[in-house]
């Protein structure tokens, strides 16, 4: 009963807004004579476009391509970011010397690399994965450095006093201790990955949901363009939701001990 109540409390406003949108957009569409109304289609037409494209398998294929790029790009970013971040974080010298460069790397417009990379390597999916990986590595790397740096000196003392071997210390102590920060970094990178994916597919691609949006825009098909845009939003939301679940499970100890 409690979860039902919580569910309703969270769902009523969005549902009402969707209904209002549906009705208002329908009414506006049928009453206005603005020729540009094609580009602001009622929700009913957007839904119709969704049904059509989903049935034809078009939507699924493009969504899959985009998801594949995001996940592979993130994977590379995580592996490189955690590895390099651990190395840098463990050495005070490295941290202090490299800091200004890392901060600068984080401030450059990562999306600007997309045209450079695509221009040099073409429209296929592999360059997009590199673009996503390069953009996403910085938050993960910097957060890993912070996480490693923040390891309690009492823990460091303990591993030294009990003569922990290096591999054991890394796997059983260092990485788990830094995991909360690392996960926070991955969370940020997730958002960046979605953005870079969209940019790379609008700029130059032959597949993907971003490409789909642009393609439909090129054909001046309002409902389809809007539909694909909303699908991208949904993808972004579902990915962050999925990540939240992963975070909750792996960091259960962290959340429960922080009381």
């Amino acid at each position: 009963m409690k979860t039902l109540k919580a569910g309703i409390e969270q769902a009523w406003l969005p549902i009402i807004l969707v209904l209002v949108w549906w009705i208002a957009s329908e009414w506006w569409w049928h009453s206005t004579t603005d020729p540009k109304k094609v580009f602001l289609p009622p929700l009913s037409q957007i839904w119709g476009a969704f049904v059509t494209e989903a049935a034809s398998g078009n939507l699924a294929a493009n969504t899959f391509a985009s998801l594949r790029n995001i996940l592979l790009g993130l994977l590379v970013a995580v592996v490189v970011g955690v590895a390099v971040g651990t190395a840098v974080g463990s050495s005070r010298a490295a941290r202090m010397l490299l800091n200004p460069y890392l901060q600068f790397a984080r401030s450059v417009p990562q999306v600007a690399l997309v045209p450079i990379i695509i221009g040099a390597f073409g429209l296929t999916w592999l360059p997009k994965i590199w673009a996503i990986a390069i953009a996403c590595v910085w938050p993960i790397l910097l957060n890993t450095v912070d996480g490693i740096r923040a390891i309690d000196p009492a823990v460091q003392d303990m591993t030294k006093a009990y003569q922990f071997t290096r591999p054991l210390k890394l796997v059983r102590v260092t990485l788990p201790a830094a995991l909360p920060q690392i996960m926070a970094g991955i969370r940020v990178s997730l958002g960046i990955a979605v953005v870079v994916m969209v940019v790379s597919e609008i700029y130059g691609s032959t597949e993907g949901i971003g490409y789909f949006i642009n393609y439909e825009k090129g054909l001046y098909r309002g409902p389809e363009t809007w539909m694909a845009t909303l699908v991208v939003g949904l993808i972004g939301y579902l990915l962050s939701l999925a990540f939240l679940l992963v975070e909750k499970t792996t960091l259960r100890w962290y959340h429960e001990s922080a009381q």
Partner: protein
Amino acid sequence: MAIVDTAPAQREKADTRLIVKDLGKTYVTGKDAHEIFRGVELDVEPGSIVSVVGPSGVGKTTLLRCLAGLLPATTGTISVGGRMVTGPVPEMGVVFQDYSRSLLPWMHSRENVALPLESKGVRKAERNRIAEEALAAVGLEGAGHKYPWQMSGGMQQRVAIARAIAYQADILLMDEPFASVDAQTRFDLEDLALDLRRRLGVSIVLVTHDIDEAVYLADQVVVLSGKPASVVDLVEVDLGTERDQLTTKSLPAFTEARSRVLRQIRR
């Protein structure tokens, strides 16, 4: 970093005598030098308990960290069982003051206790067995599945002690181990220390600022005082190995030792 003499000796009780000669520590930052302590001499026989007392900030923790091998001493030597020691050794287990921060929150207590053994290369079944025994020895039988943050301060400290025992340490170095728990728990933990000495034959070097505790537990009380700190007195406590909180603390020998220590610290 470990034992200088590489003769692999069997773990005999005679081999675990801790001898400290002329130990000193000076911190150098730039051009300034701060001498923390100098000329510390200790002789901890196997199975004996030595308390180190002194005013706050005198350098007791620094001394303990040097003994544990976490801090290099500037002068002097440390030897265990006749072998010179320059870093952490398997014979010494450390129980830190910040017990809650030295336990890993992503592992339950049995895993925490067994972890140093994993580093030693002990196989899993054996590790768990030893860990369970160590937990039982400190009175935490059956609590192995609990996480540190699910336990009280006193229980967490017991886990830290169990970890040192499981490590098969012959010498326990304890840094104000009972300072952050309430009085009743402190008495229980003090008796636990005595119990461990009696049952397992471990030696203990215990740093504390509580004079009652120092005298109650020790065979020898080392009084550290001054700036730079040095050993101003070595009080032999002759109260036997069977002690308890009520009777022992009302013995005249206890009061005498206590007054002497207090006088030395105050000087």
